[in-house]
């Protein structure tokens, strides 16, 4: 079935048409943005299902421009009376707004790349199928006298954008995710998998890795604070990379001179072993054809061989700074402190396997993932956070002991300049509720600063 013929597509586009037609008589320009979200989640802990939810909602956002003034209103009912009231509300708000100095209108239609972000079978996953996946994870954990926690979840996201300049687009995407935290007496192990299709999830591999890490984590030793060489597993790299994406590729701070890349475009800013792109069309990820302006998404080289090569834009910010949109407009109801950022970061894989990294390491630490990372200095990308889910000490090319979780405080810009080797596989990661992804490989860094330790 063509995606535009889907029942939801018809309903969404019909609502969009009503809003645009209504608004054209009341405002100079009008746009509407429609988000539908169905989220089914089976959550487990202590080897049993503790929560099983299916939530759905849809939101219509109407934005108008009236004599250079902007107003925005939103609702979640699609009857004509509510939609009309929402358009009127946006118009009334605009009358009280100050005149915006640069706003001219909404973007015009462009050709949208054809991507298949939706797996139809995933839309039909049943509660029983999800419970069976949990049952398998739990039974393997119980067999090893361990306790498992985590979630299996499926998300279906519908998105439509239309405006009075001719944009009229609809897309449907799916995401399936499983993660497991397996806990022993003192140790714990983590693993996860994210796919477009529920039926491609490697749940058996997830629980195998989580159990193995948990068992290896028992009896952790405490390491003194200090600088250590590290191997960041893919999840840990992805977490740091996501902060780099938010802080370094914010076009507003970049152009204001407050960003990490301000006045450094074209210069080498990271290790020459690193190449990073915004890659929304990649088939192996959760591909996405257009942004919240209704403009085409595209691959953008951000860092090539360590050199800063690109920035991302939406239509309004792009016009303000004389650049073309890269298809990175954010959801209009996002908090304003969340600036636009890459939605599909991809750090290219290198050539070194994890086993070879460990074998090469004389002395250092293997990190599975990080927990609760905070920003201490945004321009320098100075972050702090804890390790979690399996941290191990390596000596003479072998893992010799689990380590109690460590607190790091490190400039990621510096850390990503200390790359010894890049892993040979980039793995897809996502965060709960979000359709954004980060694809990242293992990284071996010559030094990483730890300034404290946890009790476990």
């Amino acid at each position, binding site marked *: 079935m063509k995606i535009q013929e889907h029942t939801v597509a018809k309903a969404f586009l019909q609502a969009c048409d009503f809003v645009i037609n209504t608004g054209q008589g009341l405002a100079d320009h009008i746009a509407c943005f429609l988000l539908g979200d169905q989220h089914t*989640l089976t959550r*487990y*802990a*202590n*080897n*049993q*299902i*503790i*929560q*099983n*939810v*299916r939530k*759905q*909602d849809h939101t219509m956002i109407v934005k108008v421009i009236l004599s250079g003034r*902007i*107003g*925005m*209103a*939103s609702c*979640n009912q699609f009857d004509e009376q509510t939609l009309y009231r*929402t358009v009127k*509300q946006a118009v009334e*708000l605009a009358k*009280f707004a*100050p005149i915006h100095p640069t706003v001219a209108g909404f973007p015009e239609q462009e050709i949208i790349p054809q991507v298949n972000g939706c797996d139809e079978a995933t839309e039909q996953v049943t*509660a*029983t199928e999800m*419970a069976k996946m949990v*049952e398998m994870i*739990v039974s393997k954990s119980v067999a090893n006298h361990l306790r*498992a*926690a*985590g*979630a299996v*979840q499926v998300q279906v996201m519908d998105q439509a954008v239309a405006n009075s300049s001719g944009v009229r687009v609809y897309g449907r995407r799916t995401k399936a995710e499983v993660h497991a935290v397996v*806990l022993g007496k003192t140790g*714990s192990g983590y693993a996860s998998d994210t796919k477009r299709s529920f039926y491609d999830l490697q749940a058996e591999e997830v629980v195998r890795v989580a159990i193995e890490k948990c068992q290896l984590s028992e009896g952790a030793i405490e390491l003194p604070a200090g600088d250590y060489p590290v191997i960041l597993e893919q999840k840990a790299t992805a977490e740091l990379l996501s902060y780099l994406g938010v802080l370094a590729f914010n076009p507003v701070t970049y152009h204001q001179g407050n960003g990490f890349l301000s006045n450094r475009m074209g210069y080498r800013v990271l290790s020459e072993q690193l190449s990073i792109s915004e890659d929304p069309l990649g088939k192996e990820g959760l591909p996405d054809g257009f942004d919240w302006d209704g403009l085409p998404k595209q691959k953008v080289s951000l860092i090539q061989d360590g050199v800063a090569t690109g920035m991302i834009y939406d239509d309004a910010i792009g016009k303000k700074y004389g650049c073309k949109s890269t298809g990175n407009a954010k959801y209009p109801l996002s908090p*304003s*402190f969340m600036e636009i950022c890459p939605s599909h970061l991809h750090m290219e894989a290198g050539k070194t396997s994890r086993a070879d990294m460990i074998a090469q390491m004389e002395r250092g630490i293997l990190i599975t993932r990080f*927990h*609760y990372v*905070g*920003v*201490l*200095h*945004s321009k320098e990308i100075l972050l*702090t*956070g*804890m390790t*979690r889910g399996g941290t191990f000490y390596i000596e003479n090319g072998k893992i010799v002991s689990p380590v109690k979780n460590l*607190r790091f*405080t490190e400039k990621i810009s510096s850390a990503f300049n200390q790359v010894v080797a890049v892993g040979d596989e980039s793995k897809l990661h996502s965060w*709960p*509720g979000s359709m954004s992804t980060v694809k990242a490989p293992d990284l071996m860094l010559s030094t990483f600063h730890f*300034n*404290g*330790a*946890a*009790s*476990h």
Partner: protein
Amino acid sequence: MEHIAKFAIQEAENLGVEYMDVRVSQFIKEEIEIHNGELEKLLYHEDQGIGIRVLVEGGWGFVSTPKHCEQEVRKCIVQAIELAKASGSVRQENLALSPIEKAVAEYRTSLKRDPFDVPLAEKMELLEQANAALRVQPEVTVAKSMMYMHREEKLFLNSVGSHIYQETTVVGAGIQAIASDGKDVQVRSYPNTFQGNFQQSGYEYIEGLGLVDEAERVAQEAVQLLQADDCPEGVQTLILHGSQLALQIHESCGHAVELDRALGEESGFVGESFLTSDCLDHFQYGSEIVHLTADATTEGGVGTYLYDDEGIAAQRTPLVEDGKFVGYLSGRDTAPRIHKESSGAMRAVGWQNVPIVRMTNVHLEPGDFTVDEIISTTESGIYMEGIKSWSIDDIRYNFQFGCEIAWEIRDGKRIRMLKNPFYTSNSPEFWSQCDAIAHDDWQLWGVPNCGKGEPFQTIFVSHGASTARFRQVQIGVS
């Protein structure tokens, strides 16, 4: 609301559920933001929907929908039953619930001036004036002024006959100055970092914040920070203003006393708690002057209500008394596991989400000192104010917080401004070093972004806090 809620109860009972509750709610909000004199956001939002929770064969199922028709509600109940049965299929122990009594009640936020009746022009004028006052300092490159208000009308019915209507109005506002000299970037916020401060109140709360009057000081401090000395590192006496202490309470106490975390139910996502159930009534959490309370009845708190989202009455629960850990935040399905009854702390964000154990209003009770007495009796130390960064481990033990601004204290006086301060410790050690708590600047700090659970829920909570002093704390500079 009434009709569809009653219909849902009747349908679920016909289908043989053991227990069910339904929340029907309508939500409206308005957000205004001005950045550098230009409108950044002007939004009016409304939504409505139904959340249905059923207990069948020893498992929970929850389904929510924005559609109010009987056909949709019937479909949702069938789905919820399927989910509940699937839940029951992977269980190690029977689900025990603490008792619930039928309740019939109504609650409305007390307000003098309905924020949704205040003319938009008046709100815009306040924010524009505050924004202009921030921009008097040329080094302020980004000036933000913000206002927020929401109202939720919620009807709760359950299969034991409860009928609870609650109408909650929350307002908030704030300003922020970001100063830059091309080399450094510094931020100051008022009243606090997360979009200002929030209360359950009418527009009178926003009028009382004095945004325009405070803007000059906020901008000056942001600019002065550019030239300030770095905070010296070392183990020192730390004095925390309530704006930061509120977050300290939130992270190291509020989350740590959530019983679902302590029982391991959050271990798959946000983590567990160092305050395991064997610590209850035994563990010395802090010094003897530390008294922490979860109080869902505090007037003006953004975590205040009459009944929680599973129909249990709001309570005032001592968490730490004389420094000893004595209580948890809990719900009906967690409390029995430590042989207690629910503390009435099950909250859901909107009709869309399932209720889970959440903070209400978690306070550090006022102490015996004045702020002046705390500072004047400190020979040497660092005073910090304003949230800048936060990080704590998955059992709420090891933490590190950065603040917007600091001052060096010498011989009982503030002697110089310092930038980029942070402090790090672990929760019990930190609270055991608390030797002075003020009473004269105790106030509610509303936190609008407390995150927990899967699907992720971001909720409003309050913390009562005043200035307090902690000895022998590791202080650093970022």
